[in-house]
């Protein structure tokens, strides 16, 4: 009788995997840890999103290092980086680009916007109007932009790291659920631990600047890692586990809206990527359980009175804790 291991061509993959992948990823992680102190899990999740071809939404109060993380990630990879500060007067064309009339050539020509880069930092995305937001989000989803019926593909790898300030309401346009669904994960950086905070305090002003970082990965290597993610083995019982979690969010009486099918899909991919980040060629239940909050909490809508992010994350945690983990 054949076992799963016999059916899959695991050995060669394992070999290549075991030789260089973990070192690549850990060098990326170490690089980022130079500027973001005391948050290894956050860094891991950011790398997970990157190699899972996902986009990341960082939501937190100002001053915990949202921008640093995004910038650092971009600097660590030898790739193009664009930062877009979202303001109320930002127009869709300011992101995607604009077709202008070239009087010399007597024709329209496309001036690409800042979105044509590998890593985009969309700072304070909720400060701009829904129209502008949706133009970005559509591009994120399709990995291409269409201006005046001409499609322009976006570069690979392509990742949007959006930040959002959860505290302020004045003059903000919160992203609707349908748009939030396009982010693979929403993470929260949170306050640093006391030891890490002391380290931050004592370090010199330039020491924690993302500019200081040297690239450790090329874009090709990132693309290679992204293809590796697909090969990560996920046991049938774990697929079942993911589906059970997604289903439970739909059935929960605490949630008005459960996770979309895309949510389950994203959880699957994120778990694969996370396994890779952890240096494994296979998924374990912990990957799924640990990521479920980041992947699912922004895709669900809680009942009235519990809409705050911390509440929602608590609800997801509770749901996941109540589901039997495959043994």
């Amino acid at each position, binding site marked *: 009788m054949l076992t799963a291991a016999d059916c899959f061509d695991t050995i060669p993959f394992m070999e290549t995997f075991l030789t260089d992948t973990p070192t690549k990823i850990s060098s990326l992680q170490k690089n980022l840890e130079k500027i973001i102190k005391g948050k290894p899990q956050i860094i891991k999740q950011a790398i997970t999103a990157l190699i899972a071809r996902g986009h990341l939404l960082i939501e937190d109060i100002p001053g915990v290092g949202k921008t640093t993380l995004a910038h650092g990630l971009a600097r660590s990879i030898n790739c193009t980086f664009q930062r877009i500060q979202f303001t*109320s*007067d930002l*127009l869709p*064309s*300011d992101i995607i680009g*604009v*077709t*202008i*009339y070239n009087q010399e050539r007597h024709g*329209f020509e496309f001036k690409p916007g800042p979105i044509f880069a590998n890593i985009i930092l969309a700072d304070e995305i909720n400060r701009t*109007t829904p*129209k*502008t937001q949706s133009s970005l989000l559509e591009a994120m989803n399709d990995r291409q932009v269409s201006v005046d019926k001409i499609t322009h593909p976006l570069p690979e790898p392509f990742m949007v790291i959006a930040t959002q300030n959860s505290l*302020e*309401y*004045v*003059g903000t346009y919160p992203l609707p659920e349908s748009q939030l669904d396009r982010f693979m994960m929403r993470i929260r950086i949170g306050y640093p631990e006391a030891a890490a905070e002391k380290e931050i305090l004592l370090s010199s002003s330039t020491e924690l600047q993302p500019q200081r970082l040297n690239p450790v990965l090329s874009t090709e290597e990132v693309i290679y890692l992204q293809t590796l993610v697909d090969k990560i083995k996920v046991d049938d019982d774990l697929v079942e586990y993911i589906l059970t979690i997604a289903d439970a969010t739909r059935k*929960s*009486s*605490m949630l008005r809206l459960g996770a979309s099918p895309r949510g389950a899909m994203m959880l699957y991919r994120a778990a694969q990527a996370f396994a890779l980040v952890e240096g494994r060629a296979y998924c374990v239940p912990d990957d799924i359980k640990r990521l479920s909050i980041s992947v699912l909490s922004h895709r669900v809508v*809680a*009942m*009235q*009175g*519990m809409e*705050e992010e911390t509440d929602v994350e608590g609800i997801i945690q*509770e749901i996941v804790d109540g589901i039997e983990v495959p043994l």
Partner: protein
Amino acid sequence: MSYLSAPLPWLTAAANLLTRQKQISKKKIGLFVLPRTLSFTKEGKRFIAILFVIGIAAINTGNNLLYLIVAMMLSIIVISGILSESTLRGVEVCRILPRHIFAGTPVIVKWNISNKKRIFPSFSLVIDEALPNKLTAESGYILKLPARTTLAQIRPYIFHKRGLYKLEGFKTKTSFPFGFFLKGRRLDMPEDALVYPNIRPTKQIAAVKFSKSGELPEKIKGYGTHLYSLRDYTLMDDARVIHWKSTAKTTKLMAKEFEQEGNKKVKIIFYNTLTESTSLPANKEETISGLKDEFEEKVEEAASLANYFITSGFEVGFKSLTTELPCRSGKEQLYRILRELALIEPAAGSKNMPLTVVVSK
């Protein structure tokens, strides 16, 4: 203290002296409330009836085996009492209310139900909020609560009216083990819940009507996203505002102008007077209830308006005959206004101002 309260008057008196503070806070529980309630289910009544019949038969026939069956049935009652007591004992419930509660809409309340017993689990527990008539709360049911564990349950509550609710505690009930008796126990868990008036979309339509009828600030030019008008491009303008399509059409540079978005300010003024409306119904009680309904209606209208403007990005202020809140924006401001509206009562006001809600700039 409730254990001591029932049988002996002098003991109750002594207990009252010892625990005066507590008695005052629990005065609703009263002196003669037993610590447990017990009622028969339909099956229980039948069981007792059969027990009586067999008992009479045993006495009549002197058949000792019938006496044995009577004894067995009595032992079943004893066992039932022991088990139901064990299931009710050591169970504690605490509730976690959501931060914001709106009247008339379901809210989610979390119950943490814990079994503090060391060994024995509790079975088949029905848990109810002990204030059944003022709010609708589904009763919770737990099949098994193992020893030394806490279980969270989510219950939708509906608070029917706005205002401050003084929640008292819970009633736990069980028909465990045999379903012959329904034993109940009271669990004290006093807590205050502030309930905001309901926000109704229909009332928001009224707000939209306000804005249409010109009472709201008109659209002005400024920095926004909505197109206000097109005009010729001047050198003062940002290049980004060039509208390329019309430029291509007209062969001269055209610039877009946008609507102003910020700095929208309104003040909701609530004349919470209790003046009689235009027509007087003959019945006085009807008048009063009618007035009350009208007042509640106006409270909801004010709340809905506040919600509408806050979510539309306005800075909203609130003014009533008793309080005034300065204009601010953001959700926190909405809750501030709602808190006022939750507790607002009719106040004696000037007679020339009827009960109305006014939106002013």
